């Protein structure tokens, strides 16, 4: 069966520091992968999606970037974090039109 892993689960970073959140999927090949952000009291906002290695589409302009160095690896990054980057970040993969989510990474920027 397919599984999706995210790490770290929790991260506290100072403003201006870099960020790297990693997501890996097991049990499938060439998945469509997604990064969402969930701010407190709000729904999920799609940040990036990828249909294959090196293929990244950004949905909204922001301080973040994404990369897909391997088929089943999706990385969310920032060179300099802002306070507004705080939130709960969710990675997801798609199968037959449904999205399956990872456990999430909670980022607090101080």
């Amino acid at each position, binding site marked *: 069966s397919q599984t999706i892993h995210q790490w770290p689960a929790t991260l506290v970073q100072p403003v201006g520091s870099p960020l790297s959140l990693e997501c890996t999927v097991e049990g499938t090949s060439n998945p469509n992968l997604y990064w969402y952000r969930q701010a407190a009291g709000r729904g*999920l906002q*799609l940040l990036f999606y990828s249909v294959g290695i090196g293929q990244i589409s950004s949905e909204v302009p922001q301080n973040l970037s994404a990369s897909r160095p391997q088929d089943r690896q999706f990385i969310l990054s920032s060179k300099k974090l802002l306070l507004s980057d705080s939130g709960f970040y969710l990675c997801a993969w798609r199968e037959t*039109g449904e*999205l399956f*989510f990872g456990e999430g990474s909670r980022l607090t920027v101080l």
Partner: protein
Amino acid sequence: AQSVTQLDSQVPVFEEAPVELRCNYSSSVSVYLFWYVQYPNQGLQLLLKYLSGSTLVKGINGFEAEFNKSQTSFHLRKPSVHISDTAEYFCAVRSAPGSARQLTFGSGTQLTVLP
């Protein structure tokens, strides 16, 4: 483009009581509809989905939802809730057939089940 409105941000209910979480959507095309549940500090888990066919959809954990096209609603119901149902619930919509990246989420409803 489509949008989703979850009318209640918080719903407190006593254990074993029935509950309804409301969801309305707007779209100019046919839609697929979803309900997800999120337990504290966890990812989202699919509860149920409507793609086509019967408008009454049954999901996991005893939940069900009814698609009402004329009222553009997809309300989630459970006849008797448990403490373990305490979680945040998200309604989502995307155009049919559409793409998963077009999935639009509501702002969520926090269901709190009281003993």
